[in-house]
């Protein structure tokens, strides 16, 4: 197996997986932000309606 050929195949696979992993990480971080913002706003609404 030609080593340069194999190295570039590895780059290709690594790039494909890296893009997918980065996208999943972005989704997870967005999910966390949404949960935080949602609970913050719900708390503000509850406090506001009590006043």
């Amino acid at each position, binding site marked *: 197996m*030609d080593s340069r050929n194999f190295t*570039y195949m590895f780059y290709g696979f690594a790039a*494909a997986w890296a*893009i997918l992993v980065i996208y999943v990480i972005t989704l997870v971080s967005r999910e966390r932000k949404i949960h935080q913002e949602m609970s913050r706003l*719900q708390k503000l609404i509850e406090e506001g309606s009590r006043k």
Partner: protein
Amino acid sequence: MREKLIYLIAVGVAILLVANLYNILLVLPDEANQGAIWRIFTFHFPSAMSAGLCSFLALIGSMMYLWRRNLWWDAFAVSATELTLAFGAIVLITGMIWARIIWGIWWAWDARLTSTLVSWLAYAAYLIFRKAIEEPTARARYSAVISILTFPGVIISWKSIEWWRTQHPGPVLTIRGGGGMAPGMQPAAYWNLLALAVFAMILLSIRLRQENSQRLIDGFRRQVHEI
């Protein structure tokens, strides 16, 4: 229940991807002319099909929004467009890496590569454009029009290898009338297509839920503002 089902499918997809990797890297032999690099095709083709599927879903979402004027369809379209970009990036990068070995160059301005890049940039512009408009219904309306106008680029990209004979290889899979790939190697690409397409649908459902939660947050913000 819905979340558990999504996790269950995700576990199935993960197992399938690992099994595919094992088959592609350790079971299948090198290709006679290309050597090891042919294996990139087993990610390049499924990613291209997944990107195409997502762009089609974005088109459906955009048309449905213009018809129904329901923001759920706009959320569906933007979620599908994001995935089109992610899978499109895999297509472009894996293609360039393959080209570096087989053609000796990273890029050629041939019909397939150029139309794919132009479509990818148009979808990126769609996402950037959305940030520029505050009002949700105007944003959804203009975005839907851009998405519909962008989709023909995907068709051109798909058919370009049949319409013009330039640098990019013609169809290689038997199903498209090609004969450039040994029949024993083709199932690996199809299995990866199944895994990546289902994975794309899982990500789409998660992204769609986030987009709908974001709309809920916007409603809460207005409520807080009124208090």
